[in-house]
């Protein structure tokens, strides 16, 4: 089972390495969600194909993950205070858009870019890592398989360079 997943992940990764994202969308297999509009502010190009999006249980699954995630991060003693006064409904909406887009789903990310949004927050690596750990727990709760979680984390990890400013 694990090796099947691995093979699938490897095949996916190979596809994303060899095909530019725009091309990957054009050549998406039949039955894949329709090509997402370009979202230059999403911080990364989407994962090719729809296997990861499906592993996240599509938009409903991503919505459940983000509902759980927002609950987690706002009550996490390490980072909860960062969200005092934040518009959590808008944060929820944008995170669903962003993860839906990045996992290869038919969504557009309508928010601002990662650097701009986080510029005034003075975030440290510890904040970024706490957030990633909470996201893993939320993905676990939705029973997203480990290989699919890591496909998303591989897209999110390099955003550290834009998000962490302190």
């Amino acid at each position, binding site marked *: 089972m694990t090796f099947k997943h691995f093979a699938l*992940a490897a095949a996916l990764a190979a596809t994303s390495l060899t095909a530019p994202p725009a091309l990957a969308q054009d050549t998406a297999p039949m039955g894949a969600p329709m090509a997402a509009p370009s979202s230059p502010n999403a911080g990364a190009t989407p994962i090719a194909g729809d296997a990861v999006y499906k592993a996240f249980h599509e938009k409903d699954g991503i919505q459940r993950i983000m509902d759980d995630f927002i609950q987690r991060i706002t009550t996490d003693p390490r980072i909860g205070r960062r969200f005092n006064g934040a518009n959590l409904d808008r944060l929820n909406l944008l995170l669903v858009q962003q993860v839906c887009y990045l996992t290869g789903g038919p969504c557009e990310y309508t928010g601002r870019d990662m650097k701009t949004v986080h510029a005034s927050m003075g975030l440290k*690596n*510890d904040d970024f890592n706490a957030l990633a750990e909470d996201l893993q727990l939320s993905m676990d709760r939705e029973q997203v398989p*480990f290989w699919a979680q890591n496909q998303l984390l591989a897209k999110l*990890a390099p955003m550290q360079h834009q998000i962490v400013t302190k």
Partner: protein
Amino acid sequence: MSSRRLGLAAMAAGLAMAAGAAHADPLMESGGLLDSGKLLLTGGVSNIEGASGGGIATWATIAGYESNDGVGGNVHGTFVGTPNYSLTDYGAAVGLFNRLELSYAHEAFDTGSTGKELGLGQGFTFGQDVYGAKVRVIGDLVYDQNTLLPQIAAGVQYKVNDQPAIVHAVGAVSNSSTDFYIAATKLFLNYNLLVDTTVRFAKGNQTGLLGFGGDKGGDAYKAAFEGSLAYLIDKHWAVGAEVRTKPNNLGFAREDTWYDVFAAYAINKHVSATIAYANLGSIATIPNQNAVYVSLQAGF
């Protein structure tokens, strides 16, 4: 015997430390020096020479789970048993700002009943202290997922064997030496795969447990290769394989490339265990030394 007791004490202290850290976590807001970085198991485990890495290979990782803003560290105890010998090993490592790693390990290579056959005496034991320093030069193992650039580190290990008379008698040139190495480690998160390649410039016979340099190979530095391949099964489990080549300096006993397959389990960022099966080849004239390897690590 006293070194074993010291090892146990170090382990106990480490566990207490880890338990304390675990307890403090929920109370600790971000921004402290004891922060949390990396992903589970991506700090590597403690290898036999005390540096972070696999079991026999040294990686470019910096010990501990600190981020670039904090400090981390761990203690470890390791037992390796072959049909004819055993190696017990304990040590500690500190990671500073995910940049500098300082490590210490004490290895006790017990020849058991084979010691008598070799003319050393029943239970003759070689001891070795390894003092290590490693600097991360470039790259970040976890964050750099959008580039092929690995995390690259350079390190030194000063080794002192506590049996100078015997290592000279078997043909070694010296009982102390400094190894230099360059390690490149890449985490391919989207493949759940970690790959390490390391080049070590060393003189050690069986990594120094039988001294340094020799009557056959001379006293010059030789380049040796270490490699690890690890597959992350889930957040807690990694399995993989390793290889390590070594100089072959002694006339009385050939030495072989080491291989192992391993499974590592991290309960959390504070406690992990590694088991491995290793093919260590011929050691001090006795061939086919296949070993069981068990290692425990505690830290933060």
